[in-house]
């Protein structure tokens, strides 16, 4: 069986690395670069300026690099990149960036995107992240290393999902998810330290203990001042562990944002950009 199926439709200008497997009915566009040892099952579509690092595994019906579903998009040649060793399961879609955003959508390494999940334009995913079935990331979402999003989670645009956090299934996330915590519900709420996740990722006992103490101070049942006040208290209480310091910095940034979303204050589109118009494909 040839590694590259003769039934795949591969543009001659595409750059295919060594030892790449491409199944039947894949469609690979001219500006695509595929890293060494990638494995594409059947019916995978790679379009736009898309770069895959080495050893990515793309299951049937994956689409990477398609045009953004954004009315502000005007057909600009934006980009998409995947680092090494990601697994994209059936029906996963990843869209390229927009000119009014970052101009690119980036996914790091070692991530598992389960069946039917979606990464929209201008998103940034770090490493070792899990997206459960049917989880949808809207545009401009940042997911930090080691975050676990369960199934059917919907992430509002411009949300930041903190490192090593856990979001429960069927949660509509509308504000930043702090690192190291469990998060769910409507309204969104922090539901405890993600102790199980931290254990699985091999965080040391001291680090977990420090986070537990910080968590109790910041989110615990007796916390009756505003979060900013509690952060002040925590940060005044002495030297903080690396993870607790990270948690505090993250929370401060989200507080300074709009709607609890740090990235909202860094939007580059203006009111005029956001007026209604038809999608680029059918616009006059």
């Amino acid at each position, binding site marked *: 069986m040839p590694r590259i199926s003769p039934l795949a439709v591969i543009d001659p200008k595409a750059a295919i690395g060594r030892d790449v497997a491409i199944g039947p*009915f894949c469609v690979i566009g001219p500006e695509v670069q595929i890293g060494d040892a990638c494995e594409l099952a*059947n019916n995978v579509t790679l379009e736009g300026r898309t770069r895959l690092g080495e050893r990515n595994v793309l299951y*049937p019906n994956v689409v990477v690099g398609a045009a953004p579903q954004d009315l502000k998009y005007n057909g600009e040649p934006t980009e998409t990149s995947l680092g090494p060793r990601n697994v994209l399961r059936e*029906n996963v879609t990843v869209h390229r960036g927009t000119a009014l955003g970052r101009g690119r959508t980036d996914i790091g390494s070692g991530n598992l995107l389960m069946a039917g999940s979606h990464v929209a334009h201008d998103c940034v995913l770090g490493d070792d992240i899990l997206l459960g079935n049917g989880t949808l990331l809207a545009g401009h979402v940042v997911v930090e290393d080691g975050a676990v999003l369960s199934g059917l989670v919907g992430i509002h645009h411009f949300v930041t999902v903190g490192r090593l956090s856990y979001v*429960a299934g*069927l949660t509509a996330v509308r504000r930043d998810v702090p690192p190291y915590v469990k998060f769910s519900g409507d309204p969104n709420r922090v539901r405890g330290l993600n102790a199980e996740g931290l254990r699985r990722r091999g965080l040391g006992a001291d680090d977990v203990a420090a986070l537990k103490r910080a968590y109790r101070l910041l989110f615990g049942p007796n916390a009756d001042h505003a979060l900013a006040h509690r952060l002040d208290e925590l940060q005044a209480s002495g030297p903080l562990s690396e993870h607790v310091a990270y948690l505090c910095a993250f929370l401060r940034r989200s507080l300074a944002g709009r709607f609890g979303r740090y990235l909202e204050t860094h939007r580059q589109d203006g009111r005029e950009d956001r007026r209604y118009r038809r999608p680029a494909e059918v616009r006059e």
Partner: protein
Amino acid sequence: MAKIAATAVVDKTVELGAGALVGPGCVVEAGVVIGDDCELVANVMVCRGTRLGRGNRLFAGCVLGEAPQILGTDRAAAGELIIGEGNTFRECVTISRGSLLASGRTTVGNNNYLMAYSHLGHDVVLEDQTTLANCCQVSGHCRVERNVWLSGYAGTHQFVTIGRFAYAAGYSAMASDVPPFLKVSGNYPCIVRGLNRTGLLRAGFAAESIQALERAYRLLYRRKDGQTLAAAAAELARQDGLDENVRYLLESVQRSMQQRQGRYQEQFRR
């Protein structure tokens, strides 16, 4: 006479039943068995380890029998997907084959209707005559008993049992067992909202049985202040001459209560 489209890629070891149709762009891997009168519309993928009984319809974009979505399991992992007869799999339905870390087999019974983008995880057992609406996600190791109706975007935790003739509303987040004959909704929490009267009437249940189930539902789920489910179940168990469906409801509820998170199947987790 089986018909295979010219652009379909069907391994030579595949067994195709009489009258089976494999449409353009389909991919069928080695050793797959496809029963009589099955139809794979177009761009359907059926992976190794899958066996389909007669009369199944697979709409465009289905991927049946792919490797389990388990960290550390790769695409070549062994495992089975055994599907019965007369099922409909709408567009882009995905079903994972079983994992050798567990039972090794995902099972689908007969006459089920899985709507577009619904998903069954590894080691799931789907019985007969169920309906899964768009984008339902059934996690690994779940058991969905017969005649269950799951509405759009309903999702389950792993190891959940959904009892026969149960109904789950849209966006239900089912993190523990769903009792048979009842309606659940919500997220979070997902709670029992009443008898699935519509489902029982459509299935032709006798009026006496429906009444008995309604009384049992009230006893179990409209309890007096402070009474626990366990106490209510015990009270129901003491009654004589229980309707057979009420008995099934009672046994299901008691089984689920044995496990801390209300998921009876968790005890089989390896």
